């Protein structure tokens, strides 16, 4: 069995893994990334492409704003287009409770450096006249953006490779062993092992078993946000329109298609990696779209899909150093918002490994928050997930 050595080994070539490889390689570390399939072929390459700042968990904003700066510079830096487009984002209120929520959020996010504008119904409809009667106000965040997620990981992986990272596709990690000195030996299905001093667990919805192997059990589970797309239409919309409760959201791609998504997320089979959108769910999203943007009623859906995303009951990722095993770092289960923060997650992991710490606050995402079992607030999560997921996968 041949062996490969590196300073840092990374398991998983989604955005988390690719961004980490990129930042580490740029700073001169020897990195080997192992991806079971193709880079960005799972969650990171099938998502909605929303780089949304407003409406996030407030204490994630420093990380998110750092990520947005990185996104703003990314295309120039790597010399490839990922269809980054700073079109802004609209949180559309359709109930009085939504209005109260966005008004509070607009005040709360300001100290973090995020400025959003609250628009009344009239102004909202003046700006986006195609919105339906049910929209009664909105929050406008001009710095939010979108990308074509299909392009992101391959482009970042190529950039990382130009900086010297060794990125290997179609290599599955089958086991991780730890030698006496603390170094890791990563066993693959391709007849070689990887020996490395640091190991990043960036295996997305498949990462929890590895954490458990090092005594860090987390109640992670997989689910799929439903996506669908219309035929291309003449340009009518720049920003993302996103109902405050996530019940429906849509945007128009660079090509002109309307991309549509909306909660609740549906069950997926992470084991077989086959995903199918339950038709009832697709139908509901179509009906909601017709409510929030009635003129789209005349359009056709040409494809629907979902992806396999890792979630945790508090809707925050696991991100930071292992609390049991020096040299091991976790970054997974991004709960449906890992695209936006991805570049900063990579930069922070590089700092943790090369500098031994980071200025960006990430304490809330520590893996040991699950040491004392956490009960899921099912009432709150009812809008987020299909009942089947809540009943079968959520800890009580």
């Amino acid at each position, binding site marked *: 069995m041949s062996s490969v050595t590196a300073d840092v080994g990374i398991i998983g070539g989604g955005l988390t893994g690719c961004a980490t490889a990129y930042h580490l390689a740029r700073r001169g570390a020897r990195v080997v990334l192992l991806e079971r399939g*193709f*880079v960005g*072929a799972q969650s990171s*390459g099938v998502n909605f492409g929303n780089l949304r700042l407003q409406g996030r968990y407030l204490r994630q904003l420093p990380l998110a704003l750092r990520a947005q700066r990185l996104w703003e510079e990314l295309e120039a830096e790597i010399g490839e287009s990922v269809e980054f487009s700073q079109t802004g984002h609209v949180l559309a209120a*359709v*109930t009085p409770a*939504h209005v109260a929520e966005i008004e509070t959020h607009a005040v709360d996010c300001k100290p973090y450096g995020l400025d959003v504008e609250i628009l009344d119904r009239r102004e909202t409809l003046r700006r986006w006249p195609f919105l339906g009667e*049910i929209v009664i106000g909105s929050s406008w965040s001009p710095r939010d953006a979108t990308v074509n997620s*299909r*392009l992101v990981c*391959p482009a970042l*992986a*190529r950039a990382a*490779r130009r900086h010297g990272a060794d*990125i*290997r*596709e*179609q290599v599955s990690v089958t086991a991780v062993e730890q030698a006496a000195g603390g170094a890791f030996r990563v066993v693959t299905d391709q007849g070689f092992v990887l020996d490395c001093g640091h190991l990043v667990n960036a295996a997305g919805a498949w990462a929890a078993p590895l954490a458990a192997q090092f005594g860090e059990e987390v109640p992670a589970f997989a689910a799929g946000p439903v996506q669908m797309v*219309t*035929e*291309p239409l003449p340009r009518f919309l720049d920003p993302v329109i996103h*109902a405050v*409760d996530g*019940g*429906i959201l849509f945007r128009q791609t660079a*090509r002109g298609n309307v991309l549509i998504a909306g909660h609740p997320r549906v069950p997926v089979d992470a084991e077989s990696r086959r995903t*199918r*959108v*339950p*038709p*009832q769910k*697709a*139908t*509901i999203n*179509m*009906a*909601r*779209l*017709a*409510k929030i943007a009635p003129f*789209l*009623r*005349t*359009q*056709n*859906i*040409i*494809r*629907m*899909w979902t992806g396999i995303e890792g979630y945790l009951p508090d809707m925050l990722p696991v991100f930071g150093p292992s609390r049991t095993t020096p040299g091991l770092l976790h970054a997974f289960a991004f709960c449906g918002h890992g695209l936006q923060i991805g570049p900063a997650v990579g930069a922070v992991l590089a700092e943790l490994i090369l500098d031994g710490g980071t200025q960006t606050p990430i304490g809330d995402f520590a893996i040991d928050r699950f040491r004392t079992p956490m009960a899921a607030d099912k009432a709150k999560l009812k809008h987020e997930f299909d009942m089947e997921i809540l009943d079968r996968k959520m800890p009580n």
Partner: protein
Amino acid sequence: MTRIVVVGAGPAGVAAATLLVERGADVTLIEERAQPGGQVWRAPAPGLALDMDRLLRGDSEGFRRFHAGFAVLRPRIDWRPETLVWNVHGGTVQIVAGGAQQALPYDALLLATGATDRIAPIPGWTLPGVFALGGAQAVLKDQGCLIGREVVFCGSSPLLFLAAVQYARFGAAVTVLDTTPLGAKISAVPGLAASAPRQLAKGIGLMAALRRQGRPMHLGVTLLGFEGSGGVTGVRWRDARGVERVTACDAVAYGHGLRPESQLAEIAGASLRFDRLRRFHAPEADALGRCGNGLYVAGDGAAIGGAEAAEVSGRLAAMALLADRGESVEFGALPERLARLRRFQDGLARAFAWPHAQVAALADGVTVCRCEQITAGEVRAVLAPQLGAAEVNRMKAATRCGMGRCQGRYCGHAAAEITAAALGRADAPLDRLRAQPPVKPLPIASALVEDDWP
């Protein structure tokens, strides 16, 4: 009572439904079009008095028999015309009819979804006036219209001469440019003569008919492209001796045989297998059409076989379905008859081979994906064994080739050939674009659900 859903009212679906009701089953027959018939027995639009004897000649008897049989069947089944099955999920077929979505639960599902044209892109193939061969035939059968007055029928397909003869019967000035290499045809003849002498004689008769009428007909040609600006005005081709020529025309019917409409079977859970002879994927089924888990396939959607094989395979799949539900059935000589018909089709597939090497070598500037206007060069540019697109679905993600209205049903085969050849894998089983619902565009307005949001 068990509910059996049959999708597709061509010869396969109707034969299956007929056998099933005769055995007392409760059958729902779903058809996207307004009328039964499928491709081969496609009926003219209601109110159109098309002279079917003139159109079909010797086949008009078969046409009448099919529609008379259907008239008897119709009151005995739950007949759902103008109903699209857009998805299959969790033991239900998802349909759209009368502008509304609905779910129909089933105990067993028999898919007889037929076939459509397989397109080999060449320069100019997206020009207005260039039709797929089957499409040109459908316009005539369905609307009684011709795609033009001076029509070039070109490509390589057993339907090429049939369609040309039908157009000639309705007054079109037809020219046939057959790209089938002569050697391939001749070497296939002994096999064809043994397995299906009747069909072979029919084919030869069609050619003779065109010859008698003095229609220009050139065999073993190479097509160089379709020409015109704003619409097709000519076909550029090279004859068997290597002389380059242009035939003026106002429309082109172009085809390279058929490919199964297998998306619904894939979504319903069938595995797909790569057919090396035909170089496409078809649902994996046993000789009777069983895919497992209560799913059955028949007709061209299972294996390209023509009208007679479709009918026989429809009956066989229905019998297999009954047998699996514990009923006693006599298969008799039918399985052997189907096997013989399919051997004949293998002969046709060899004679009228899909020109895969030519497709793989398509010039960089030529459009592959018509919906998204993606060229062969754009496909090749993103291919790379590592950190690029290493297979056809990744290629699609990077280029949008196959991402448009037709979801790769028309460009997918060419895209797979170009991808495999450029990656040096032309000899391995091809990759294929994965299917997702809906199998055809689904109107948003058809979502009439009660939803309490917000």
